[in-house]
């Protein structure tokens, strides 16, 4: 209401002003104004007549203030425009800086500095930069304000992330858990609160009194640590003496080191060595453990020597000497000496202790089971007695083959696989041996290729060596018993036959045969026989053929045999205490007989194998040939499309992954994808997971009550946010921030104390 009335007033006021403004002079008389105002007052409020003068004046002033224009006019009027100023200047006159300076120079009171300043000012013509625009100014202010606000807000960041990461948030936050508290917690969380308590604790702390139980106060401990004067003196003297002695010793050593005489050093070294040996022997008697350590050290030194190139006559000096050695006796001697030193240093020390050790080691080897040694012999390929397997294998193969043969006889149908088997049945023994030998040799060759750089006897030298060794062996064999010689003879015979076979199989192997690594005496035995046989042998066609066919056939046959194995696996016969008196009903029996007749023996197996092969073939990639004869080139009878074109228009499909039943001969697994389940499966990996394995393992545990205990279900299905019904959730206060900080700092402190206490243990 008041506002409205005011507005009305002002309107009237402006009207009045408008009427009054018609008068040409700008000047108002006080009286006139008063009149106007008085009239107005009469209009607005007639009850205020009896008010005192001062109040009226105030009101008038207030009303006067309402009109902006009026005020301006008043101010104009009050300005001393008409009057002269005290500096005899009017507002119209412009004051120049030079004028001022002129006056300054006249006045002695002005300092030289100010004068200088003024002069500089006068001289400089630069204009003052205009102030920043309002927008820019505001932007800067906003920026600053934002930074401040960001700082303020970022303090909360840690708490916010903590809450975001929390497994569960219970609002209102930071409630104290209800229920009774354990006494320990209560006591530990106790703090001095009342002034009396605080005073007591501060006193205790100030006097370094233990708050918890302790045997000694810190002050007492400090006093215990301190020692008396005499002890300190004695100690000081001791230290002085030690220092002096050390310096003497150092000086002596320096002097000795500077001596250039070789002889002196030699003698010195020898003496030292002797001393050392003596000491060591004593040590052996008194303290074997220390001696062992010493020995270890020596061993290490030896190793280092062996590793380094010192004394190897490979240095610059040694090389120069080597050149000189032909002519110079001294140089030769020096080199010799050098080598001797090396020999000395690298010589293995043989002491009683080390001998013991060796013996122990031997004992250990004795303790080891025999097969450890056997393993090496097993690799020895050409020695059948060591292999042991060769003797078993042929019989096995025989057995298998005979089985096959019988099976074949039984089955009316003949097929490729059977045929192959049949052809193979002839040379089973030889083949088995061959295969065995071949594989062994390959293995050996591999090894050889690894080590060939080191140990290879090639050319004449090798032969010579062989002969020599053979002679030796012959001598030995003469000395040996008859049984053993028989043994070797037998072995030789086998070796010969083997070699024949091997030679016949492939010529390429012959070349490699020459480079044979000799591992044992028996090997050496073998070598000379080999050399004569090599040129004689001409590969027989039959054998070669068999060798060529071998891999493919063995693969095929393997499958067949495995499949058969599955069905004819050796069965355990079960003894039944009660023999069945009633057999199955007659019709069933008849049926059984019928079926047995129908599926006698192999038929089932071959059917299955055929089906499997068919499936495999279906899955194999097919080549689509899209070449059109005569397209883009000449066509006609006897003309074939060009190779380039054929290559261009032949489409190969991708090779599918290996079948799941690859290694299961008696199983056909369908390769079709189960698309029924795909709508229920997760098709794309959800966000934080990097690979399917992670995701799969994260959902491996079911959540339901059917598979879990109640507690687990509750834990796993915990809601992320829990709000208490009826509780007021207030925004987080600043205290919380402090609390969080305190916690962090407390944790840090505790960690520090822990690390400090650890060394004390």
């Amino acid at each position, binding site marked *: 209401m008041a506002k409205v009335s005011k507005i009305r007033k002002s309107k009237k006021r402006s009207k009045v002003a408008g009427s009054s403004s018609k008068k040409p002079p700008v000047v108002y008389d006080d009286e006139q104004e008063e009149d106007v105002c008085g009239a107005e007052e009469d209009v607005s409020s007639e009850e205020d007549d009896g008010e005192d003068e001062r109040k009226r004046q105030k009101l008038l002033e207030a009303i006067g203030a309402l009109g902006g224009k009026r005020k301006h006019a008043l101010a104009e009027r009050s300005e001393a425009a008409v009057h002269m100023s005290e500096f005899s200047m009017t507002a119209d006159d412009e004051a120049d800086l030079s004028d001022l300076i002129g006056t300054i120079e006249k006045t002695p009171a002005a300092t030289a500095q100010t004068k200088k300043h003024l002069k500089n000012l006068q001289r400089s013509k630069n204009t003052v930069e205009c102030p920043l625009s309002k927008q820019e100014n505001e932007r800067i202010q906003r920026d600053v304000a934002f930074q401040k606000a960001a700082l303020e807000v970022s303090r909360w960041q840690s708490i916010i992330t903590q809450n975001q990461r929390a497994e569960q948030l219970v609002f209102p936050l930071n409630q104290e858990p209800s229920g009774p508290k354990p006494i320990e917690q209560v006591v530990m969380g106790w703090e001095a609160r009342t002034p009396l308590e605080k005073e007591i604790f501060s006193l205790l702390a100030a006097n370094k009194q233990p708050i918890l139980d302790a045997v000694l106060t810190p002050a007492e401990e400090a006093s215990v640590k301190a020692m008396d004067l005499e002890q300190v003196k004695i100690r000081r003297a001791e230290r002085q003496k030690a220092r002096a002695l050390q310096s003497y010793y150092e000086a002596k050593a320096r002097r000795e080191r500077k001596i250039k005489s070789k002889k002196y050093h030699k003698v010195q070294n020898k003496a030292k060595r002797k001393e050392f040996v003596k000491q060591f022997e004593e040590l052996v008697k008194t303290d074997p453990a220390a001696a062992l350590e010493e020995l270890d050290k020596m061993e290490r030194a030896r190793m280092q020597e062996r590793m380094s190139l010192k004394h190897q006559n490979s240095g610059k000096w040694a090389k120069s000497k080597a050149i000189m050695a032909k002519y110079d006796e001294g140089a030769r001697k020096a080199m010799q000496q050098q080598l001797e030193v090396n020999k000395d240093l690298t010589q293995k020390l043989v002491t009683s202790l080390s001998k013991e050790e060796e013996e122990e080691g031997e004992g250990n080897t004795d303790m080891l089971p025999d097969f450890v040694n056997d393993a090496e012999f097993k690799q020895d390929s050409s020695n059948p007695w060591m292999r042991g397997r060769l003797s078993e294998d042929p019989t096995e193969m025989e057995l298998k083959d005979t089985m096959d043969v019988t099976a074949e006889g039984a089955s009316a149908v003949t097929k490729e696989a059977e045929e192959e088997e049949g052809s193979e049945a002839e040379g089973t023994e030889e083949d088995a041996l061959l295969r065995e030998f071949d594989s062994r040799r390959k293995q050996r060759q591999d090894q050889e290729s690894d080590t060939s750089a080191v140990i290879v006897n090639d050319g004449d030298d090798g032969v010579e060596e062989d002969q020599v060794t053979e002679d030796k062996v012959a001598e030995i064999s003469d000395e040996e018993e008859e049984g053993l010689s028989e043994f070797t003879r037998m072995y030789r015979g086998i070796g010969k036959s083997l070699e024949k076979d091997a030679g016949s199989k492939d010529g390429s192997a012959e070349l490699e045969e020459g480079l044979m690594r000799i591992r044992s005496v028996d090997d050496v035995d073998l070598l000379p026989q080999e050399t004569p046989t090599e040129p004689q042998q001409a590969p027989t066609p039959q054998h070669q053929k068999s060798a060529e066919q071998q891999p493919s056939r063995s693969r095929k046959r393997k499958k067949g045999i495995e499949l058969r194995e599955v069905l004819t696996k050796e069965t*355990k016969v079960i003894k039944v205490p009660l023999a069945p008196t009633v*057999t199955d009903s007659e019709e069933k029996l008849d049926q*059984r007989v019928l079926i047995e007749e129908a599926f006698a023996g192999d038929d089932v197996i071959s059917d299955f194998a055929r089906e499997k092969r068919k499936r495999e073939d279906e899955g194999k990639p097919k080549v689509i040939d899209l070449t059109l004869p005569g397209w883009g080139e000449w066509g006609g009878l006897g003309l074939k499309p060009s190779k380039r074109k054929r290559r261009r228009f032949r489409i190969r499909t991708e090779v599918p992954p290996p079948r799941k039943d690859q290694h299961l001969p008696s199983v056909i697994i369908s390769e079709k994808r189960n698309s*029924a389940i795909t709508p229920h499966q997760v098709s794309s990996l959800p966000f934080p997971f990097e690979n399917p394995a992670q995701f*799969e393992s994260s959902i491996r545990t079911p959540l339901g009550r059917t598979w*879990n205990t109640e507690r687990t279900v509750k834990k796993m299905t915990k809601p992320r946010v829990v709000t208490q019904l009826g509780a007021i959730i207030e925004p987080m206060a600043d205290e919380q921030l402090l609390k969080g900080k305190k916690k962090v700092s407390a944790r840090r402190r505790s960690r520090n104390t822990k690390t400090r206490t650890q060394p004390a243990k």
Partner: protein
Amino acid sequence: MKSKATFTDSHVEKKIKVKRPSVRYWNEPQKEDKSRDGENTGEAAVQQDRRAKKRKQKDETSAEKKLFSEKSDPFPGSAPIPKDRLQKFKRKDKITKPPRHYRKLKQVITRSEEASDLALKQAARFDLLLPEDAGFLEGDEDEDTCTISQEDIAEAVDITSGAKYFNLKLTQFGPYRVDYSKTGRQLLLGGRRGHLACFDWQTKQLMCEINVMESISDVKWLHTDSMFAVAQKQWLYVYDSNGIELHCIRKFNDVLRMQFLPYHFLLATASATSFLQYLDVSTGKEVAAICTKTGRLDVMCQNPHNAIIHLGHSNGTVTLWSPNQKEALVKMLCHQGGVRSVAVDKMGNYMVTSGMDKKLKVFDIRALKPLTSYFLPAGASCLSLSQRGLLSAATGDVVQVYRDVWSTPVTKPYMAHRVRGSVWGLQFCPFEDVLGVGHGEGFTSMLVPGAGEPNFDGLDANPYRSAKQRQEWEVKALLEKIQPELISLDPTDLGRVDRATFEQRHQEKVQSLGFDPHAKEKFVPKFKKKGRSSAGAVERRKKQVAHVDQRDVIRKSVEDKVKMEEQQKRKEAKKAALSRRKSALDRFKK
């Protein structure tokens, strides 16, 4: 007096020994993390003791020193769990944690690992609540358990158990098929000559008895004990427990064998026309009908682990089927003659088959590999596996029971019993040590100690449930019904990420929709009048459109090429810039 004193002394001592400070709840959180590793391993007692000591020392030195109560827990941490029990409930191996900078992933993984760890431990702990042990038969010295007769066993055991051995002499209606309900309370008998009877076999209370006046080839309980399916001469029928015919399902003809998949509510039937059909008994719809093309299907069983149906064939193969695939998932050659019977154990690990070649074979069905093979002099016509892994095989009129056929080679049966006629149907009763044998002269209920699972799951199959509980269970089971699409060889497939390529998925979509939704429409030129739709003009228009399309393709390819080249250039420039950088050693270059 003295003795009394000593007695009291000892008593006190004992008390002290026995007394142990009870675990305080405030100790728990502190110790749990410390003893975590101990829990994990559950190793030998000695080691544990040492560890406990160490832990105690640690506690004393660090935190508990400050505690007011000086006593410390002599058995800190929670009780250890045996390793084998943990192994029993283990689901899959843990995965290695991702590197640190995958913070979110790491957090998710740690949380899930924690949860599954807790689940595992809790399950292992609560295994303690299965208190019942399976019994077994133990003979005297030099006495084979297989020579102990049923009468002897029935005499030796308590009356209620003894009453479980009984014979029903039903000579009229020929050999009987047998089926126990899922809880093991109800028994269903179906004679080949049409006799049908269901009853509570423990109380011998008859629920219904009818003659369907047709030959019956198989009978099967459905999900509850109020409904059962009967495969009759022509069609499949469903009756309720009062013997009232509910349905005659004409879609299912010449059914020879049936299997009910309880969690999928599927009735799988194998017919003489070599059809394998699935009937959803909750909706009454045929889910799948698969023509196996393998002749008469009279050998059938289910794998309770993954609800795969195993069929035995006359050519010695066993095939595995799911309703989602029209071809056999797996086909294995098991016998040289025809397969006579198949059985799969409860955990889905082993399959036992018997064939015309008089052999009994055990397969590891997960690896699809043969394990052992036995030769039975007369061959086994029927096989059945109990919940505890006992195998019963019927040879003629003799029923033999074997124990542990897969782990140890067996030479003698565990039990043997001669029934009156040749055996036609065999089934172990769930949760009971009873084997039901249907034969030519009726039915025999045999006692086989150690056959049934002693601990039943009250929420799954409760033999003692009331009518109300049964109703509740039915509702829950229907809610938790597993869809037939989820049947696959590996039931954990559902928890796997589908790794099919985009192309594969597209192909499947096309197959299911019948058309390609992303295919571009073929341009068909509009008909225009005034002779502008002459063959030449139409062809020209077609060509134009084709040209435009081709131009688009070309433009795109050119753009790609340019882009590639630019990239290459940029890369090279970068490389050049890198290589041009001068090194301190450049001054030595010539």
